[in-house]
Structure formats: structure tokens, C-alpha cells
């Protein structure tokens, strides 16, 4: 008889080949010089190179700004979508989520063309616009999910205890939907740090992001330094996601 655990073998092989091995290779390359000897110079180079550091700072700044704008735009949108009085049809929800189904590269290229046609100068403004456009659905959906699942009796209980609608919103709805917001923040913040296509197309590489310099290094065959940068980014993503997880251990309604 075949043990049931053997069913997971194909997935295990897949995981090893496409997740574990590449990650090991990144670590391996990050700590090697061009001739294959162990070194820490790739890492120290990043922390001493003001160009890399400032690119990193810009990346984080853009990611924070993008996440903030997504929360500010996404929360009200999710709230309206989840409100049965304001939105009676599931179609509206699908319309908001639909951009997620279209390749981000295509949307970004189209946005860039649109800006060119309208004569906008490409720069930070267009970059943020493109990022918000790309990532907003990832913010809306988890928040919408939490709001939809929220028991209406909490809001009623608050109202019953004397809270006007606005107070109910701030004292009950918002705190109870925070797990959804956290989930959305992770979904938006982490990919924005590592993106390079959006900045390439929407700023004509005027603004370089962390993802951009990794890509440039790898493209110009500087594998070791590129791997070191990727390694640093992985650690940062790991920390943020761990930080996020621990804060929402019992969170319901994430995107995944």
C-alpha cells in the first residue's frame, strides 16, 4: 500500500527545485566573490555604498507612501462595497477586483502610454499613480472580506449603547477590521519594495527602486552583488511578514 504522505512527493520536488534551491543559490552567491571564494564584501558593499543605500531608502519611502494611499483609498471603497445599503450587487465588487486578473505589466505599459499621450512628465507622481493602480485591489479585497464577515450585531450593540453612527465606525468597525487592513498592508507593502517594472515604465528609470538595482546587477552579470541585494531584501520581507503575522494571529479574512 502506498502511504498517503507519498502523494506530497511531486509538490516536494517542485518546492525544492523552484523555491528552496534558488533561495540557497541566492545565499550561496551572496557570500561568494566572482571566483567562488567565501566573502562578506557583497554585504558590506551595500551598507557602504551611498547609492545603494539611498535607492533602498527611496524604495521603502515609495512603498510606505503607496501603502498609505492604498489604505486611505481602499478602506472607504471596501466599506462602501461591504455596505448592503450602498452596494446591492456583487458585480461592483468584481469590477473592483477585476484589474487583479489582468497582467500587471500590461496595465503598467498601458498607463505609461496614456501618460505619454496626455503629455504628463513621468516622475514620482506617475510612479505612485501606477503603483496605487496596480496594488489597490490587493488592499480592498482583504478589508472588504473582513467587513463582510463582521457580525452586524457589534455595530448594533454599540449604537444601542449610545454611539452615533460615526462613533460606531471609529470605535467598533475600524478596530474590528484591522486584521483585514494588516493583511492588505502586507499584500501591498512587500511587493512594492521589490518592484522594478513599474518604475522602469512609469518613470523611464528616472527613479530607481531597490528591485531595479537588483535587476541591473543581475542583467550586467554581477550575480554575486545582485544576489546579496536580493538576500537583504528577503530578510526585510521576512521581518515585515513575521511582524505582521504575530500581530494578526487570529485574523480572519486575509486574501490568502
Amino acid at each position, binding site marked *: 500500500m502506498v502511504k498517503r504522505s507519498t502523494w506530497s512527493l511531486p509538490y516536494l520536488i517542485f518546492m525544492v527545485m523552484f523555491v528552496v534551491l534558488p533561495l540557497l543559490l541566492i545565499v550561496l552567491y551572496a557570500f561568494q566573490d566572482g571566483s567562488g571564494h567565501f566573502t562578506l564584501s557583497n554585504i558590506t558593499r551595500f551598507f557602504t555604498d551611498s547609492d545603494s543605500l539611498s535607492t533602498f531608502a527611496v524604495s521603502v519611502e515609495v512603498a510606505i507612501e503607496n501603502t498609505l494611499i492604498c489604505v486611505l483609498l481602499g478602506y472607504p471603497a471596501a466599506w462602501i462595497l461591504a455596505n448592503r445599503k450602498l452596494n446591492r450587487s456583487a458585480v461592483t465588487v468584481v469590477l473592483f477586483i477585476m484589474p487583479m486578473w489582468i497582467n500587471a505589466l500590461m496595465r503598467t505599459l498601458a498607463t505609461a502610454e496614456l501618460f505619454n499621450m496626455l503629455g504628463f512628465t513621468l516622475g514620482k507622481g506617475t510612479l505612485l499613480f501606477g503603483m496605487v493602480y496596480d496594488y489597490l485591489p490587493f488592499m480592498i479585497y482583504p478589508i472588504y472580506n473582513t467587513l463582510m464577515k463582521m457580525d452586524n450585531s457589534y455595530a448594533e*450593540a454599540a449604537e444601542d449603547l*449610545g454611539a452615533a453612527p460615526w462613533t460606531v465606525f471609529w470605535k467598533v468597525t475600524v*478596530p474590528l477590521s484591522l486584521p483585514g487592513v494588516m493583511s492588505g498592508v502586507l499584500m501591498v507593502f512587500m511587493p512594492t519594495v521589490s518592484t522594478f517594472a513599474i518604475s522602469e515604465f512609469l518613470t523611464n528609470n528616472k527613479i530607481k527602486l531597490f528591485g531595479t538595482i537588483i535587476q541591473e546587477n543581475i542583467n550586467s552579470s554581477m550575480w554575486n552583488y545582485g544576489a546579496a541585494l536580493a538576500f537583504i531584501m528577503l530578510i526585510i520581507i521576512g521581518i515585515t511578514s513575521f511582524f505582521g503575522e504575530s500581530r494578526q494571529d487570529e485574523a480572519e479574512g486575509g486574501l490568502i
Partner: protein
Amino acid sequence: MTNDYIIDIQHLSKSFGDVKVLDDINFYVRRGEFVTLLGPSGCGKTTLLRQIAGFIAPDEGRILLEGKDISGIPPYKRPLNTVFQRYALFPHLDVFDNVAFGLKLQNVPAKEIEVRVKKMLKMVSMSDYEDRSVDSLSGGQQQRVAIARALVNYPKVLLLDEPLAALDLKMRKDMQMELKEIHRKMGITFIYVTHDQEEALTLSDTIVVLNEGRIQQIGTPADIYNEPVNSFVADFIGDSTILNGTMICDRRVEFMGHEFDCVDEGFGENVPVDVVVRPEDVYIMNQLEGAQFSGVVQSCIFKGVHYEMFVETDKGYELMVQDYNSFEPGSTVGLLIRPSDIQVMRKERTCNTLEAEVEDDKHVNMLGCSWECEVPSEFAPGDKVLAEVAFDKVDLWDNQADGKLGGEVHFLLYKGNHYHLTVLTDDGDHLWVDTNDIWDKGDLVGIDIAPSDIKLRRRDG
């Protein structure tokens, strides 16, 4: 004239879509009273409570709080608080902050909040739980916190929506006693919603019995139990045998094939009535001497305090009897009912009376379809008439397609030797049916009426 009504509900009606959930509700609540809205699920009791709380606006009618109409006032401005069925404690706040929620909104000074919250938690025996998260509490503990959270605001009326429904039996009994004690200590008016008749009888000063959106009876627990006004109330509250009877004259009633002395007057002579006999009011004995009638014991079950027996009487009626002594199934027993224990109720109807329209000399239209029947020559096509159909002349079929129209068994009542069913047709009309067949609530049935059983008469006025 001033009265002491803290809540006065006048002509309240509410529909959800086509369904009339509440129909012309009128009752008042005195200051400090414990009033229970009692009824089966779907009777409109929760809707009524939610209208008082302000979550649902009435279609018609007014709700007066201390003489002032509060119908247009949003819930957060009403000096009333609710204990919700599923507690609805805020999961992001601890026990203390849950209870303090209302007081903080009123900007009560922090010191006073602390004093009042602690006092209230002490009252519901939750003093040591202030810092606990609500998720870590048991159902009973959450219920206590929910009660404290509502009462700490000193509401003019406390509304309770089936607060004990989710607790197990033992805990429910304990909480009932505690609720009664809290009510006595605080002196706050309670309006309590439940479907549990025992709970209502235990807790209330006044019970309002609701069914299908209408008030059936308002009275003290003793009134409702001893003198139900109709067969619904008699059946819903406590155990009972409901029988068809005839009021022969004042203080004399016939049922189960025998004549009995009773204490009821003013029904008229030879008027059909419903008779309620409570099982604990039937005297059962081994000898026939001194008995009014005899019967044979069919079954005997020990119920803890008493035995519950079903006795087939000499005229073939089934009667439920409760007694401290057991009687062997198969044994012949003598039975006696005292005049004051016989509750006589006016019948709500003696046959089905339906609105109909004559189609031609052989057909009428009623209940949304065309029926063959004998149309008297005095009626012409298009005449609006009344059709009468006796209860036992309505035929029910297992298969909806076998009948002329479909329906659902909505309510059933055993009347000693037959069942009296309320059938809701697909179009929402009511039909009452007497049958010997056994149906269950919710059964889908086909309905048919033989042409000769439809009697037409002129509409009055």
C-alpha cells in the same frame, strides 16, 4: 390623565415585503414591570423588540416612551439598552472596557465609570474578570457581562432578546433566578423576549403571547395558564388537551360525549366551543364509583415528579392525565374533572369562510383558482360571494401535485380524537382542516375540496 405606562405601543404594524410580521400591536408596560413577549419562532416578537430598540422603523403606529413618541428617534438616542441573543460583546475590548463602553460615550468621569462598572460586575458575579478578554469567557459569563454592559447605563427599559437561549438547561435555570433578582434590585423595567413558555411563566409579571404577528393574549402568568383565551394559547402554554365541545347552557358544557358542570357563563345555548383540560386537573382513580366517566390507560411514563398517562375514554377520546400515582396500561380507570378546572373558550371559527367570485353556473374562483361547485341560481357570473367549507370536508394529499392547489401544514392541534390543522396555501391563505391522518408541521400537502362541499352564500353588506 397621567398614567404610569413607561412604554405604550399603539397600533404598531410592520411588513417585510409581502409578509405582515406585526399586525396592529397594542400593549403597554408599567414602570418597573417585567414583561415577556412570548411566542413561537417567526411570531414577530424579536421584530417587535427591535422596533422598541429602534433598529427597525414601524410601518404604522407609535411607540411612546413616558408619553413621548420615540418612533423617529435613532437607537443611540433612546434611553433603552439591549441584551442581545448572541451577546455581541466587543472582541477587541476586555470585560471592563465592554461594560464601560456606554458610560465613556456619555463622558462620565473616569472615577465614576470605575465605581459603576465595578459595582455592576459585582452584581453579576464577574468581579474578578475585569481584565479578561471576552473570548476567554464561557457562554454564561459572556451573558453576565452583556447584562452588566446594558444595565450600567441605568436604562429606562432593559430589552432582552432571548438572552438565555444559548445556555444549557441548568445554567438557564440559574440565570433565570439571577435575572429576577437583578430586576428586583435595580427596579428597572424589563421587556423580555422568549419562545420558552416555562421561562416566561417563571420570570414575568405580565406575558404578551404573540402568534403570526398578532397579540393572542395579555395577562399574568396565572391568567395565561389557567384561562387561555384561545386554543393557540392553551396549546402553547403548558400541557393540555383541547377538545371540541358544546355549551349547552350557562354552567353546563358537553365534551368527550359527556355533560359536565362548569363555571363559565354567557356563551349562549348550544354554542360550539373549545374546551381546555390541563392534564394535572384530571382526577384518576381505580374505582368507577364517584367518577364522571371511565377510560382505559394506554400508556404511562414516569416524568420525575409525576406520571404522564394517555387514557382512552369510554367514548373514544384520548386524554392526557398527570398524577403522582401510576396506573397500569390496560387497566380501566375512573376519571373526574372539577367544574372550576374546565376552561371553556369561544371558537374563533366553526368552518372555513372564503371569499369567492362566481365564474359561471358550475364554477367559482377562490384561493386563486377555479373550483367546480353547485352555484345556486340566485347568483350570476361575476357576483362576489362567500364560500363555506366545513373543516372535515377539506381533503389533503401527500403529494402537492395531487391536489388542486399546494399548501403547507402550519400549525396542528390534537383534539382528543382528531387533528385540527392550519394549512397555509401557496398564496398565503389560511385553511383549517379536521383530519384523522397524522401530519407534521411543515409537511407539504395537496389540497382538494369536493364540489358538493362548497356552500355559497351572499356577502353581508
